[in-house]
């Protein structure tokens, strides 16, 4: 292999020719002391809080503390190169990260620098690291499901797009597994995923990336990594960087995004370290006073943005985002008060707005020349799955309680369940989803409505039954049903189920079709049954998937297929 030197030389010559020298005017300060990822810089009297600074060796920093004659700076990168007396210059900018399509499929650090050896990330787009969460008016309630592909979660703790659902549990209980499965399950759903690894072992992160690549999930995923070896400042900004990268797709393209923060306990540790080094006063568990705001401002950025509609000329392209297309009616016809747009510029918001706009359009004399247009950059969402590590199941520690109170529900994982073979090890009793119910697929809602309570009742009875008392028939039946449901909800890692198959499985359990299948055979039965549906009755699955409804008729049909299959399965089982 030979390098074509001439060509490169000509490109570089051209670059030099294009160089225009300008006098460089900068505001500079001097490093007074440096260490452990922070520096105190003398001068820079006009520096703003949060401003990005540049050190002599090319590293970036951010103004954290403004003091009388110096500023406290955190350093993003190698601080061992920085010496006392080094020059530090203002950039006049806030910290920002590159974002856009070029990042998808890449592994980057929190400043957007590539870590995967695939070369520079070339993108013209940047977004500020810290961005204020949208207000009330810009949002709409969570109304679209985000399928995790896990039966135990989609049935009982449904998550909606734009929701913030905490995954909490001790170490080694499968928190990352749930998050990764959810990312894998977004294949073909037009969801951009961002996996933010904070303070993790590099080996773990490589494992996750490998799995995502193997399952094809890297095609729509960005991995942001600040590992345990990276300086605390990078670990501290990593979640904000991930959020900024997702926001690009949400705000400019109206797309759905999913961000996994793995995990926020480590970020809180990094922030505590910075704060203590900068001599901010420690509070409970030595965390600084603003550690709640650290997480609340991050998680508030998860949002379901409102849909925006307008009545526009019929020849307007479908991908038009220009809001001025919504002109006043040429003949001066005004919408009656009950059909008024939400915005004086003629924009209608959310679902009710769409109905009003439709009604107005229907009443117009020249409706053939007009149409109802949904702006494609509206209605995007960012779903956040923060992870928190507890110690010995202690959810009442400082950071877990904070994040529980910020999020819209939590999935609680327990080591006892995990080691008993119940995986995912979700404790159904104390896991909740506060808003996802509205977003759940109707068919799932119908069959899984009582699942949670039944399982909780089973857990109670189970403890009772261990005493060996005689049980009446009804109780025994409840126990048997519960045992089979627990078996049914087990699911191997990296095998998310499409929602229609989940519905069939859970229907089989809650409607008692499994009651005469031996407990040990339940997993095998489920797999075989779903294969039977895929092979022989794809139309039933398709109907479930497309309508999302479970009519009584369809439910009966599915029930009959299950029973038929069961009789074959059980006789085979006996014969075999």
């Amino acid at each position, binding site marked *: *292999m*030979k*390098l*074509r030197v001439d*060509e*490169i030389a000509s*490109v*570089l010559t051209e*670059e*030099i020719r294009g*160089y225009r*020298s300008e*006098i*460089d*005017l*900068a*505001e*500079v*300060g001097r490093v*007074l002391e440096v260490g452990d990822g922070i520096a105190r810089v*003398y*001068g*820079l*009297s*006009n520096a703003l809080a949060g401003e990005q600074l540049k050190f002599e060796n090319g590293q970036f920093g951010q103004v954290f503390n403004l003091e*009388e*004659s*110096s500023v406290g700076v955190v350093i993003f990168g190698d601080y061992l190169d920085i010496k006392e007396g080094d020059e530090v*210059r203002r950039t006049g900018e806030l910290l920002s990260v590159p974002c856009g399509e070029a990042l998808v499929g890449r592994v980057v650090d929190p400043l957007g620098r590539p870590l995967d050896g*695939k*070369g*520079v990330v*070339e993108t013209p787009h940047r977004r500020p690291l810290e961005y204020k969460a949208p207000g009330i008016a810009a949002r709409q309630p969570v109304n679209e499901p985000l399928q995790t592909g896990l039966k135990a979660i989609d049935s009982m703790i449904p998550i909606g797009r734009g929701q913030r659902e905490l995954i909490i549990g001790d170490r080694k209980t499968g928190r990352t597994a749930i998050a990764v499965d959810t990312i894998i399950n977004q294949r073909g759903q037009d969801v951009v995923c961002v996996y933010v690894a904070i303070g993790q072992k590099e080996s773990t992160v490589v494992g996750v990336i490998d799995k995502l690549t193997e399952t094809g999930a890297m095609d729509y995923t960005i991995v942001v990594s600040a590992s345990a070896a990276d300086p605390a400042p990078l670990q501290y900004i990593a979640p904000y960087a991930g959020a900024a990268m997702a926001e690009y797709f949400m705000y400019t393209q109206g797309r759905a995004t999913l961000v996994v923060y793995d995990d926020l306990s480590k970020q809180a540790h990094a922030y505590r370290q910075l704060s203590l080094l900068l001599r901010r006063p420690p509070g409970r568990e030595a965390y600084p006073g603003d550690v709640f705001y650290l997480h609340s401002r991050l998680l508030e950025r998860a949002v379901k943005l409102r849909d925006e509609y307008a009545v526009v000329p019929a020849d307007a392209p479908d991908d038009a985002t220009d809001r001025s297309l919504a002109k006043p009616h040429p003949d001066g016809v005004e919408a009656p008060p009950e059909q008024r747009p939400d915005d004086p510029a003629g924009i209608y918001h959310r679902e009710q707005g769409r109905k009003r706009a439709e009604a107005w359009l229907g009443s117009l004399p020249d409706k053939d020349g007009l149409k109802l247009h949904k702006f494609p950059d509206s209605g995007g969402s960012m779903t956040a799955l923060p992870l928190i590590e507890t110690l010995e199941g202690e959810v009442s520690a400082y950071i877990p309680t904070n994040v529980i109170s910020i999020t819209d529900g939590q999935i609680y994982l327990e080591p006892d369940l995990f080691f008993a073979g119940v995986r995912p090890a979700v404790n159904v009793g104390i896991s909740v989803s506060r808003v996802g119910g509205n977003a759940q697929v109707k068919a799932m809602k119908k069959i899984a409505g009582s699942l949670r309570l039944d399982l909780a009742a089973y857990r109670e009875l189970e403890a009772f039954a261990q005493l060996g008392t005689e049980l009446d028939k009804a109780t025994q039946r409840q126990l048997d049903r519960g045992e089979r449901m627990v078996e049914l909800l087990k699911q191997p890692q990296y095998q998310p189920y499409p929602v229609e198959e989940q519905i069939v499985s859970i229907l089989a359990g809650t409607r008692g079709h499994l009651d005469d299948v031996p407990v040990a055979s339940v997993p095998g039965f489920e797999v075989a049954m779903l294969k039977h549906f895929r092979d022989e009755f794809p139309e039933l699955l398709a109907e479930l998937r497309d309508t999302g409804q479970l009519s009584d008729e369809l439910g009966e049909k599915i029930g009959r297929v299950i029973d038929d299959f069961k009789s074959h399965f059980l006789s085979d089982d006996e014969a075999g």
Partner: protein
Amino acid sequence: MKRVDEKELEVAGVYARALVGLADEAGEADAVEQELAAAAELLAGRPELAGFLSSPLVDEEARAGVLHRALRGRLSDLVVDALQVMNRKGRLGLVAALAEAYRRVNETRRGEVDVHVTSAVELSDALRRRIAEVAGRFAGGRARLVERVDPELIGGLVLQVGDRKVDASLSRQIHEVRDRLHQRASVELHGGKEYFDN
């Protein structure tokens, strides 16, 4: 000129402002500046004297006596009194910082501004005058040039007034071109264009 610790300057600044106020009333502001500079220079050359003045082992009364016997009559009363006050507060270690802080405060009083000029070669007088004039306009005051020669600049000038720095040196421009070439080369090589013959 020896660089003084910024933290010491902050403390010494309090004494300096008080002293400038008093000296100005007496019309001796500039004379005091010279005396302080001389005192600082004296101390810089005699570490054992500086040690004696700043050591906590020496008792305050003894130091006050020495100051009185050695300086009264040789320096103006104002300066000796100031040193006595600093002695009482245990701040005699800050004489050098006081001199520097005093100089800065007094300079501001006169409407002068420090302009640090770094050049590759020694400045000529004509150039010096022009720089002083331009820098004075830039800084908003009469410029007092603090010159430094640094051959590493290769050519051009660097001016610094307070936090603001104007860099018109050749070395910066060369560095800038180098960075841009680096960047361009990595973009080109990773950009999918073929620069290799198999």
